[in-house]
Structure formats: structure tokens, C-alpha cells
């Protein structure tokens, strides 16, 4: 594809992303072209890179999120742009954020499991709000008495928080037990001279606290530590 054509594809992609006002993925962008002129995936990726570069030093940027690419206001200009809107950006309560974090990091998770960790009941309002915002959805029911719903985060959650996948969530603090802390203190002392942190924790608790890579493809990962066959039923 020559330079002129490339530029044309770039402009069409830019036009489409601005017309859509929502993220579009590479397939959706390629579908805008008739078959005979449709750019290959690699070309499209290249064009998106060019587009990203063309916005450096402007008021907006091309951002990749879970559902695709979108144009958005650069964070540094958000304070001015925010004045366009009467409503102040919503602040979320700690209870809501903690519930959301537990669902994000430990999905699929039931309300009871959330309550166990938080040590308090989770109000139905919070769950409802999270579902109404489409950040959270029920992905199945746990095969225990009462068949409680299991919650997981959605693509919209990732989009809203500017993430492409759950992998991009800030890492969860490691949990240490008494035995481990003993070992660690000892190591600290021995390592006064050479400081070196081993990859502790990760190997010892396989996968339990790592968020699943893609929420949509694996909506019902088994709860951590569950080795039985079908503790989990899906819709």
C-alpha cells in the first residue's frame, strides 16, 4: 500500500472513530472497507500507530481499551474539559470500590465470599449500582446451597478504567503468613549487604490471586483453591 493510500486509510479510521464516539476494534475498522480495498490487519495496526503519533502534542489521544481503540481527551486537559459538564465526576464510596476490587481481582466471586473478606454485609444497592453501570455481571451460579450468583467484571469496566485487560490492574499486595514473615525478616538481615527480592509468593499460590486474563472468554473460572470438577455452573 503506497503512502497516499495509507494516509487515506488513516483518515478514514480517524473519521470513523470520531463518528462512532465509542471504541472500535480492528475487525470493525476493517469492515468499513469494501472487500477489494480492505487493509490487512497488519496494515491496520500500522495505520493505528500512525494515527496515535499524529495526535502527540494535541488535545486528544488514541487509546487502546478492552473493546478497541477510541479517541479521548488527554488526562492533562481533563480539568478544563470537565467544566463543560454540570455534574461533578461521581465519587464512589469505599464500600463500592472495595466490592468492585474484590470482583475484579477474585472473579468469579459470590456476594458471600465478598462479605467474608470485607467482614461486613454488602448492600444490595452496591451490587445493583455496579450492574447498572455495566461494570459487573452475573456469570453463573455457584453449586452450593442457595446457588448464589457469581459476579465478574465486564468489558465496559475495563473500558471505563482505561484498561485493555485485567492483567493491567495494579498488582495485588502479596499476603504473608507468620511463617513467611519470619523467613523474610531473617532474609532482610542477611541481605543487608546485597539486596535481592526473590519472586516470592507467585509460585506458591498458583493462580489464586492473579486475575484471569480475559473476562469475556473465561467468565467462570473456578474459585481459587477449588479443585473439584463442577463446583461452578454457568448460564
Amino acid at each position, binding site marked *: 500500500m503506497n503512502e497516499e493510500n495509507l494516509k487515506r486509510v488513516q483518515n478514514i479510521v480517524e473519521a470513523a472513530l470520531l463518528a462512532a464516539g465509542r471504541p472500535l476494534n480492528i475487525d470493525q475498522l476493517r469492515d468499513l472497507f469494501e472487500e477489494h480495498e480492505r487493509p490487512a490487519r497488519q496494515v491496520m495496526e500500522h495505520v493505528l500507530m500512525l494515527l496515535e503519533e499524529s495526535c502527540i502534542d494535541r488535545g*486528544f489521544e488514541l487509546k487502546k481499551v478492552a473493546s478497541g481503540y477510541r479517541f*479521548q481527551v488527554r*488526562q492533562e486537559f481533563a480539568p478544563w474539559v470537565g467544566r463543560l459538564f454540570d455534574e461533578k465526576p461521581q465519587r464512589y464510596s469505599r464500600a463500592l470500590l472495595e466490592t468492585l476490587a474484590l470482583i475484579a*481481582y477474585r472473579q468469579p466471586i459470590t456476594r458471600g465470599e465478598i462479605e467474608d473478606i470485607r467482614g461486613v454485609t454488602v448492600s444490595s444497592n452496591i451490587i445493583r449500582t455496579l450492574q447498572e453501570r455495566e461494570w459487573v455481571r452475573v456469570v453463573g451460579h455457584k453449586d452450593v446451597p442457595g446457588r448464589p450468583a457469581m459476579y465478574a467484571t465486564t468489558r465496559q469496566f475495563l473500558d471505563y478504567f482505561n484498561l485493555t485487560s485485567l492483567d493491567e490492574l495494579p498488582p495485588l499486595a502479596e499476603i*504473608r503468613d*507468620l511463617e513467611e514473615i519470619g523467613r523474610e525478616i*531473617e532474609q532482610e538481615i542477611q541481605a543487608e549487604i546485597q539486596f535481592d527480592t526473590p519472586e516470592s509468593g507467585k509460585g506458591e499460590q498458583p493462580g489464586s490471586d492473579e486475575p484471569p486474563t480475559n473476562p469475556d472468554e473465561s467468565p467462570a473460572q473456578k474459585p481459587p483453591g477449588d479443585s473439584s470438577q463442577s463446583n461452578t455452573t454457568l448460564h
Partner: protein
Amino acid sequence: MTAPETGAEDLPEQTSAEPVRDEARPPVARVEGRPVSDLPQDLYIPPDALAVFLEAFEGPLDLLLYLIRRQNMNILDIDVSEITRQYMEYISAAEAMRFELAAEYLVMAATLAEIKSRMLLPRQEVEEDEEDDPRAELIRRLQQYERFKKAAEDVDTLPRMERDTFPNSAALPDLPRGDAHPPVDLREVLLALQGVLQRADLFTSHHVEKERLSTRERMSSILAMLPADRFMPFEALFTREEGRLGVVVTFLAMLELVKEELIEIVQAETLGAIHVRARTSN
């Protein structure tokens, strides 16, 4: 997780770790076993403030974490009796002023009391087995809660829509009208007709039945051909290729159209040319 004993065998140096750990403890955390000399000064809270204060916590674990942090204690080495004492102060203060506490706070109070009493029991000197540490479960829960409390704070700082960024869009140009016709199956049309007929009970109307649709079709085409404002020669409605049947169908259609007063036929003189035109009121 390996059992503590085997763990110690796997790591021989670990056995000598115990005394080292004791010495390595930061002095602030070494309240255990010592008489508590300095009482926290800020325990008195006015009633209104207490309500606000307790509401600021997401539950007993959160309150406990606060108390621990305020004492600069390590979660892994909490002084249960001190923390229990402080915790109870808040609980009884709240109860004294009839501030309604969530049940979880009271459950935690009981748990703390139990741990405290177990700590007071004479302990066997099997230090390496922390399963025996009555605090273990509480510590595990505190840590677990703390990491998600932190995770929630982290999530809150992620750049998010409507606060840190806004989606962009531009006005649309004139768009070509898409050819968005739904596909229709003839059977759907027939089914729809069946529905109407059932409702209208048209089956009793043999009028509909008798007609051949070709006549109806020809009626339409004659009407479409006829100009409303002037006459058209009768012959122009036929085509030679259709042959005799065509003439018959056309004639039947015209008769039907005359009957329904949709066209008028004029013959100026006997055996003269026949002219046809669509009927209009003017």
C-alpha cells in the same frame, strides 16, 4: 503450603531464625509482654464524633486495621490485649450512647476476647508451630482485608472516564442511506394473511374466492396504464402476444373495474371505437 515442621527441615537456617527474629523486631512493636505504660491519649471522643468516626469504617476489620496502624504495630505481630482494649472502648462507648452498631462489630468483639483469653493460657514452648497462635486466623483476615482495601484505593486512582478523560466524537457528515431492508419470506406474508383472514372471517366471503388473481392483477395494471384526465383506446390495453386468454382476462378485469366504478367506458357511436378512462369525480 508445607507444614511448618517440614518447612524448617527444608531450610535448616530457618531453625536459627527464631531468636534472630526476636531481635529484629522494631522496638515499637515490642509491646507484647510488657506492661502498657502509655495509654493512648485520644480515646475520648464526643458522642457525635463517635458516630461519624465509626461510620468512616467499613466494618470491624477496617477499625482494627486503623487501631493497629495508629499504634505502629505490625499486623503480623499485634498486641491482642492492647488492641482488644481499645476496640472495646469504642464498642462500649457506642453502646453507651445507643449508637447502633452492625452485628459484625459485636462478633469481632467476641472473637478478640476469645483470642485474648487463649493468649493468656500457659503456652507450650512449641513456638515454631504458628497454627497454635490464636491470632493466626485474625491476622490472616486482617491481611486479606487490607490488601483489597489497598486494591480498592488503586482502582480508584486508575484514570477513569468522566473524571480523567472523556470520549471524543465529532458530528457526522451527511451519510448515505443504507439499504437496510429486512428480508421477507413469502410464507411470512401468507401467514400474516391467514391471521387477517381469521380475524375478518373472510372465508365466508366467496366473493374473494371466485376471483382469479390474474384478473385482479390485470385490474391493477389497467388502472396504472389509464391516465385520469383523458380517454385511452380500448385496444391499447391488449397486447397481441397474450393471445385470446389475454383478451379474456383483460375484458374480465375491465368488467370488474366498471362494476367497482373505477373506470368508465365510452363508445361515441354504435360499433365505434371504445375508449376507456379512469373515473374521477370531476
